[in-house]
């Protein structure tokens, strides 16, 4: 069944079997591979996108369930907060392999959008669903605090 999705401000029509997770619609149907697959079971956060401003795991979200929402992916995230995060990420050379970083940035953006001055505990709570096997955690924590200073 054709479903219309609003992604990064653009309207896209996709035809995928019911139940197909948003992750695979983005990656395989729309060629938007910035959103990553890491586990498929909401355990790693690599697939994090925003739905109406809230970070969700696209690997367990059926695409038809987000039909009437605003979806933002790493490719389209470009608000003030995300850009502040990107600058801090570059400044502190956060990424190693970079594979988890789209998810990290989407989670960090959602955190700073609602909490301009997060404590360590806030960062733990918001970010602990995002695994980084390269273990860039120390720099992520620092960079979130850096970014917070500028937004």
């Amino acid at each position: 069944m054709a479903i219309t999705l609003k992604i990064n401000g653009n309207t896209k029509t996709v035809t995928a079997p019911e139940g197909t997770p948003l992750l695979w619609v983005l990656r395989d149907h729309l060629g938007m591979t910035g959103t990553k697959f890491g586990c498929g079971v909401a355990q790693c956060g690599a697939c994090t996108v925003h739905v109406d401003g809230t970070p969700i795991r696209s690997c367990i979200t059926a695409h038809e369930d987000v039909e009437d929402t605003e979806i933002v992916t790493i490719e389209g995230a470009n608000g003030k907060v995300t850009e502040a995060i990107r600058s801090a990420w570059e400044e502190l050379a956060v990424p190693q392999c970079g594979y988890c970083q789209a998810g990290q940035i989407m989670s960090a953006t959602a955190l700073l959008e609602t909490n301009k001055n997060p404590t360590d505990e806030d960062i733990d709570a918001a970010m602990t669903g995002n695994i980084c096997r390269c273990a860039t955690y120390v720099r992520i924590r620092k960079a979130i605090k850096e970014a917070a200073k500028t937004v």
Partner: protein
Amino acid sequence: MFMHLAKPLAPQPNLKTLQISNLSRRGFIRGTTGFTLGLSLVACTQNKPETLAQDASPIPDNSNVDVGPLVLISIAADGRTQITNPRSEMGQQVITTVAQMIADELDVPWDDLVIKQAVGDKKYGDQNTDGSTSVRNHFTRFRMAGASMRQMLTQAAANQWDVDISECSSELGVITHSSGKTLTYGDVAEAAGKLDVPAEDDVTLKPRSEWRYIGKDKPSYTISDVIRGKGTFGIDVKVPDMLYAVIAHPPTLFGKVKSLDDTAALAVPGVTQVIKMKEPEGEAPSFQQLGGVAVIGTDTWAAIQGREALEIDWDAGPNASYNSKAYAKELAATARKTGENKLKRGDVAAALKSSAKTISADYYAAHLSQSPMEPPAATARWDGDTVECWACTQNPQAARSTVAQICGVPEENVTVHVTLLGGGFGRKSKPDYVVEAALIAREVGKPVKVTWTREDDVQHGYFHAVSAQHMQGGLDAYGNVTAVLHRTVFPSINSTFGPAVQGSDFELSLGATDNPWDVPNMAVEVGKAKSHIRIGWLRSVANVYHVFANQSFAAELAHAAEIDQKDFLIDLIGPDRQIDFSKDGVTYPNYGASIEEHPVDTKRLKAVLNKAAAMAKWGRDVPKGHGLGIAVHRSFLSYVATAIEVAVDSDGNITFPGIWCAVDAGTVVSPDNTKSQMEGGTLFGISNALYGEITATNGVVDQVNFPDWRVMRMAESPHVFETHIMESDAPPGGVGEPGTPPAAPALANAIFAATGQRLRSMPLLGQNDRLDMSKVGEG
């Protein structure tokens, strides 16, 4: 985006993601047309090439031979300099580092660089990106390439002016004659391309004081893309008309499909085909495909759903008896018995008998999975008898030769494009998944991408060896160590490639036979262990368990001697000297490097230990429930000491108030990146030590995905992590792996200091990821 890669016209421009970000900011066209002159350079292999994997890999080692003309650099008429990076980028910033080494000697403006990723081809020399070798084995070679090219360009300008080359100098892409006239590299590139490559002896490398990029922090080439979701990893590859596959791998190694009912799978919307995979041959898994059943569909999800719907009856095969619990007991029992001697100094038995005090300890470390965040993935497309593959591989030449061999085509017919790797940690040095993609694509008759789901990764990997170790030590009345016995038992990586039933000299040299302690009587022994799952390299390899055992044991000896752990360790290492292990009968490969160039230097070992201790303010009073632990080790030619402060609450939860790391990696090309690798390597080691455990029942891995295969998360990470890089003129050592070995024992020693509980079995944490506080106070 991958359209342009589809054409077989090599050398095609690289993946767009591999070009430097500031080029695009300056509005450069990202295509790399215009490089009409690919100048050939002879591979300059002054450095002893890598042989790390020599006895643990079936890969023909081509790093020792003259690889002939090596195309690493080309210069366009407009001055842009294209560097072909032969190494795999997996987070160690190797693209940037290789560019630093080449561009420094070539002396070109950083912003004029364009990077192209090499395909897998012997003409590039050694491309196997493991063993932390990219800098330590290629530092001279890459610089020689840049310097040779610079000399050729300068000679071409001298020829054009009809002057002697000694009257010319070059800097940042411009050649200047003593009269003041100038030519750019671009002006003379074509003429330079026709000159002979100078002999290595005729090329002078820059003195250290003139280094422009080496030793400086340059921004990562990939960062701008990856933070915008633009990097192209293996799993992101898309070629026209492509289908998607996942594979139901046999639950047990060398298991076979007895019967298959694919009716329900084929009924899943989007599933186009189900095929039985070719079974692996022989007794050793090597880099072969695992067999099983592939489900092909119009997207990955359809293939995953189709796989769920398969009805397969498996013949469990020869490894169904593997139960890791029982196996661990066997290993421990073997470690209690005399094994084959691999290091012999003095008379350990007699010395132990006459010691004032003796202690012994048994250590255990579970199987681990590398689990890079990007699981293995590869795409293949056939055109007649030729195949093009795209893969996140650490070893594109092995991917090429294995695909050729298993598909029965000549190697020239196989092209392996290397994408970005979403982590590797050793998993992606094994190209089984590239073979799978090639086999499936040929059978399907269309391009196919194979994706390993996390379940595949956790259950069907090349696992880090499980191990049991037994240690004995003797002390005299003054607390001096009189004797040490280290016995180690683990299934060898060699078992993946042949009928090996005992750890190899190479594995033993990683933390066991390279023991630097100044002890009059010492023995290292190895026992036999057969493997039942695929065993493979994982970041720092056998150092993980060996160093866990002997650096924990050093602390246990210190405790028995009632001496401060760090002071004791300094004494144990003994006087400043360079160690010759062969005196004690050890076959010591020294990570493939020459022992003259890279001696085992106890002065450097003690220096990092003292430094890390100073950084941690060793000896200070810590709050109740806190403890400081330390460990030191030389691996991959670099020296690393790690001090860890843990805080343990009354429920047994562990946090890290601070971690301090001192590294002596000789000459460092990329300082901040070296710190980043120390952070990553240390936390990788801590993650494995706290939680890492792969077990098997009846040959089937018990863990399935991240909920039960546990890795470190943000809330568990330290809040303070400081790294100090020791100033050194020594030749470069590795940095990707050496951070890992000291992490686990430093952690165990810190937990002991905090709680009095000596943990000798990894994973260290028990139920609910907590320490078992009922044992607190037990030694």
